[in-house]
């Protein structure tokens, strides 16, 4: 990039760092004698889980809807984000009268382990050294994230959930929930995801990680100790990733070959094209709210995700005996997690005669469709959740059940 991050972009830096130890969220601290056992063999202790809730838990605790966030999401689903000041990432989906209706459901979302918004991650203080973990943080998996969420539910006295929903990496967590805690999940909605991370997706993640690690400010992961920040590397990682979240059509419609604030090309490497300017903006605004090491750890967790491999190489085995009601959603324009990957999960669920719905929605916006205003997605989620609530006998205001 010829345009480097400017001082102006640093304004929120302290705001972000404050969220690591003192998040503007509910937080549960699990003490050293209650460790989280990880897939890698290590134990994380003590550890913390930061979370947000919306709506009211009913007396029977039967109206819990667990939302799982994606790679660069966090627990701020439907409130103003404490760092960016913008609405939460699923503000269109979650709220009073919205498809995940907080007048009816108690919605809970926690920051994943490895994250940087209050749950323990590589930027948290390592009790053994008194400094940030950095690369001493153990490598975590999607299952570890889910185990941590299960510990949070245990702590809150919630035995099971009416539904668990999420898109992308959130969808991976949903699948892991359904496979690992069959009795705790009444219904599951994995959106725009896959049962394993594809080779192509691992490749994109590797590009992102290499960009971070190539930044001298990364300091072998010890940038927090050094008072530095690999902003350029992380911004490039985000720029590359952002392309994968959109479709060719969406980029073309939005930007075409339009030039940015100029009449003709400059025969240089400034952001001549609007799409360049847009990507640079995406990269810069991302580094204001995200930690570079968290990005390494969480992308790694996604790469390691392979639900079939964890169950003897047969995906159907992951769901054997399931009573969970599933609703899978994919998007026609999503080339990062294409429909075939969802269909593979549907076939595995059919093989165990599971109760499964599956819709492929026609969208233009690529992988990011699950975050955007897509009326058919709203109808699907609203209808499926209402039916699950009806089946489970979760009472609601008159007239809301189908």
């Amino acid at each position: 990039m010829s345009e480097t991050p400017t001082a102006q972009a640093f304004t929120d830096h302290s705001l972000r760092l404050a969220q690591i130890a003192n998040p503007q969220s509910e937080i549960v601290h699990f003490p050293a004698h209650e460790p989280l056992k990880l897939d890698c063999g290590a134990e994380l202790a003590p550890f913390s889980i930061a979370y947000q809730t919306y709506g009211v838990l009913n007396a029977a605790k039967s109206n819990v809807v667990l939302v799982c966030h994606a790679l660069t999401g966090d627990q701020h689903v439907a409130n103003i984000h404490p760092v960016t000041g913008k609405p939460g990432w699923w503000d269109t989906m979650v709220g009073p009268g919205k498809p995940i209706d907080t007048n009816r459901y108690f919605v809970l979302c926690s920051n994943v382990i490895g994250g940087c918004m209050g749950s323990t991650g590589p930027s948290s203080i390592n009790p053994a050294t008194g400094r940030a973990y950095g690369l001493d943080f153990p490598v975590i998996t999607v299952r570890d994230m889910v185990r941590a969420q299960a510990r949070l539910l245990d702590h809150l006295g919630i035995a099971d959930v009416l539904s668990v929903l999420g898109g992308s990496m959130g969808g991976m967590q949903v699948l892991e929930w359904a496979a690992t805690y069959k009795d705790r999940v009444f219904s599951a909605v994995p959106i725009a995801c896959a049962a394993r991370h594809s080779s192509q997706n691992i490749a994109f993640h590797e590009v992102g990680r290499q960009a971070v690690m190539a930044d001298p400010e990364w300091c072998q992961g010890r940038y927090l100790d050094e008072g530095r920040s690999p902003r350029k590397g992380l911004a490039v990682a985000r720029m590359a990733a952002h392309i994968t979240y959109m479709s060719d059509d969406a980029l073309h419609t939005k930007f075409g070959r339009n030039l940015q604030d100029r009449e003709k090309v400059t025969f240089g490497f400034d952001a001549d094209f609007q799409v360049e300017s847009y990507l640079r903006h995406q990269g810069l605004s991302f580094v204001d709210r995200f930690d570079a090491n968290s990005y390494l750890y969480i992308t790694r967790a996604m790469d390691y995700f392979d639900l079939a491999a964890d169950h003897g190489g047969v995906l159907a085995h992951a769901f054997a005996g399931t009573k969970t009601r599933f609703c899978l959603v994919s998007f026609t324009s999503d080339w990062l997690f294409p429909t075939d990957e969802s269909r593979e999960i549907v076939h595995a669920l059919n093989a165990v005669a599971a109760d499964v719905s599956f819709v492929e929605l026609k969208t233009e916006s690529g992988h990011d469709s699950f975050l955007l205003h897509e009326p058919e997605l709203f109808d699907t989620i609203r209808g499926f959740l209402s039916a699950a609530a009806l089946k489970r006998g979760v009472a609601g205001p008159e007239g809301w059940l189908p």
Partner: protein
Amino acid sequence: MNVNLPPHLLRAGETSRVDLLLIAEMVKPGARVLDIGCGDGTLLRLLAEKRDVEGRGIELSQAGVNSCVAQGLSVIQGDADTDLVHYPDLAFDYAILSQTIQATYSPRHVLEQLLRIGKRAIVSFPNFGHWRVRAGLMFGGKMPKTDNLPERWYDTPNIHLCTIKDFLGLCEDIGAKVERAVALNASGSKLGLSMPLFAQNLFGEQAVFLLSR
């Protein structure tokens, strides 16, 4: 599956489709049912209401699937020709193919799959042996169009039309046992049981079969 029936027969919540009522009559209460080509879910809703079934559906058209799922029905987007192989043997009490078999690429394969995944199969289809169809071809010299088969030859999804006799032949070929067979006339009434096969094949506008292995 996108089998185009006359619009008045497809209205949501409509239970005037006699073939659907007949199918519902054949299904035992509380059964596990797979409706292949479930459209907008009319039959699944009817079965849930009248028979308290545990229902699942497969539907090819996205609009149909979306409508079903938004109503809380368990329906997947899929294709009768390719997606039945993923279900285990005897996963359902009934596998239902309502007004769809004539639109599949491989009716024989689909029927075999129905009888593999369901203890029983229920199949309904428009009878191409009906006298109006025969007369249309005989006297008009053109591919027939009827209330049940309204499209022109080049835009119809119905690529494997058959008569009641043809269907019985297929059942015999694959060793399917016909437990019940009902022909319906144009006004939706059942033709008399005593009526000989040739007459049912001539006057039945559609047929509903209950099959087992």
